[in-house]
C-alpha cells in the first residue's frame, strides 16, 4: 500500500492552480515566498537540518508519515513545519515539555515578542557566514564506488510489484506506485547514489546503481493514455528493477 504523497496518476484533481495577471496572462513572477511565515518555515527547516541530526531522506519520510488527514489538510509549508516538529522531538533536540511551554507562550503573547535568544550558539548551528559555502557544496548523493551495474542501456526491465522497502513495513521508497510492476527500457545509467530506502531509516547510505528508465504512456495508462508515443522517465535504483 502506498501513502498519500505517492499521487502520480491519481484521478480527481482539478485544474492546475496557475497564477494569472489581470489580463489572464500566466504570471511567471510570483514572489519566492508568498507569506513571511512560508519563508521562515522553509529557512528554519534548512537551518535545523544543518544540525546534522537527520538527512534529506529522513526529512522526506517524516513529511510522508504525517497522518493522512493532516497531509491532505496542510498546505505545503505546514507539512514541512509539522514534520520538523516531530523530528525535533524524536531526535531529542527539543522535549515535548519545552514545545508545549513555547506554544503556551505564543498563544498568550501572539506574534509580537522577541525570542529570548541564547547567548551562545550550539556548536552544530549553521552560521550565517557559512551559508553561501554550504549551499555551494550542496549534498551530492552520488558515491564513487566500484559497483558494476547489472542492466545495460536499452535493456528491457520490469519494476517490482510491491512496495520495495525490504527493512521497514510502510518504509520510505522512491518507486512511485504508478510504475510498480510495469515494463520499461533502461534509458541511462547515472552512477551509484545513496539509497533512500535505507538512508531514510538511518540504516546507512548503501549506494546503489541508479538508472533512468523510460516507460511508454500506453504501458502505464493503457487505453486512457493521451498518446501511445509519449514517454515518462523515472530515476530508479537497481533493487526496484528485475529482468
Amino acid at each position, binding site marked *: 500500500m502506498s501513502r498519500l504523497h505517492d499521487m502520480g496518476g491519481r484521478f480527481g484533481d482539478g485544474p492546475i492552480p496557475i497564477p494569472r495577471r489581470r489580463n489572464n496572462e*500566466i504570471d511567471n513572477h510570483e514572489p519566492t515566498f508568498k507569506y513571511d511565515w512560508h519563508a521562515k518555515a522553509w*529557512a528554519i527547516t534548512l537551518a535545523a537540518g544543518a544540525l546534522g541530526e537527520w538527512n534529506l531522506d529522513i526529512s522526506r519520510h517524516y513529511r510522508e508519515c504525517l497522518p493522512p488527514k493532516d497531509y491532505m489538510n496542510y498546505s505545503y509549508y505546514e507539512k514541512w513545519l509539522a514534520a520538523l516538529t516531530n523530528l525535533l522531538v524524536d531526535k531529542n533536540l527539543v522535549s515535548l515539555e519545552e514545545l508545549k511551554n513555547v506554544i503556551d507562550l505564543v498563544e498568550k503573547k501572539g506574534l509580537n515578542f522577541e525570542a529570548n535568544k541564547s547567548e551562545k550558539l550550539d556548536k552544530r548551528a549553521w552560521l550565517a557566514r557559512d551559508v553561501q559555502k554550504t549551499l555551494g557544496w550542496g549534498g551530492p548523493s552520488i558515491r564513487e564506488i566500484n559497483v558494476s551495474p547489472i542492466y545495460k542501456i536499452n535493456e528491457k526491465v520490469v519494476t517490482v510489484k510491491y512496495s520495495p522497502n525490504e527493512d521497514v513495513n510502510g518504509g520510505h521508497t522512491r518507486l512511485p506506485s504508478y510504475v510498480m510492476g510495469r515494463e520499461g527500457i533502461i534509458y541511462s545509467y547515472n552512477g551509484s547514489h545513496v539509497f*533512500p530506502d535505507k538512508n531514510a531509516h538511518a540504516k546507512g547510505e548503501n549506494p546503489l546503481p541508479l538508472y533512468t528508465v523510460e516507460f511508454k504512456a500506453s504501458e502505464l495508462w493503457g487505453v486512457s493514455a493521451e498518446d501511445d508515443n509519449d514517454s515518462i522517465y523515472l530515476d530508479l535504483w537497481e533493487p526496484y528493477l528485475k529482468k
Partner: protein
Amino acid sequence: MTSEKEHNHNHSHHHKHEDAHSHLPSDPELRVKAIETLLLEKGLIDSETLDELIDTYENKIGPQNGAKVVAKAWVDESYKKRLLEDATAAIRELSYQGRQGENMVVVENTPDIHNVVVCTLCSCYPWPVLGIPPTWYKSDEYRSRTVREPRKVLSEFGVNVDPKVKVKVWDSTAELRYLVLPMRPKGTEHLNENELAELVTRNSMIGTGLPENAK
C-alpha cells in the same frame, strides 16, 4: 471512534513524538513563531542565518540563473554540447552549483520532442538554476496529473503540443535535477546573449511554457 490524539499513525516503527505536531497552534504563523522562538532560545539556529538564506533565494538564486544557461546554449554550440553531455559541469562554468542541483540533467526541446518536469512524490526542483519552486509545481493537481495527462496539463498553461510531437515527462524520483532547454524563438537572430536571456521564462525551463517572442 478515536480522538484526534489517538488516531492511528500507521507507523510500523515506533516514534517517540506521539504526534508532537498535533500540539501546535492552529494558526500557521503562530506555529512558525513557536518553533523559531524555541530554537533561538536553545541556540540551535541563528536568526542571521535565516535572513541570509531567505535573502539568497529571494534575490540571488532564481530562474534568472537558468535563463543565462539557456541563452548561452542558444548562442554557443560547443557550450550547448557540453550542457547536454554533462549539465552539472557546464552549469558550474557559470558558477551555478550546489544544493538541490548537485546532479543536473538538461533535456532539449526539438521540433519533434517537448519535455516537461514534475516531481510526483514531493517537490524536487533544480534550485541553483530555478530557485524555489512555484506553488503550482508543488500542488497536488500538478503532481498527480502531469504523468497521466501531460498534454492536458500543458494546455492549461497555454502550451498546445502538436500531436506529431512526442511528449517526454521527467518525474524527478531521485537526486537528479532536470532543466528543460527550450527552443530558441524564431526571429531572434539579431539579439545578443543578454537580450536572449530576457526571453527565457521560468516555465519554459520546466516545460510548462515557451520562451517569450522578441518584442
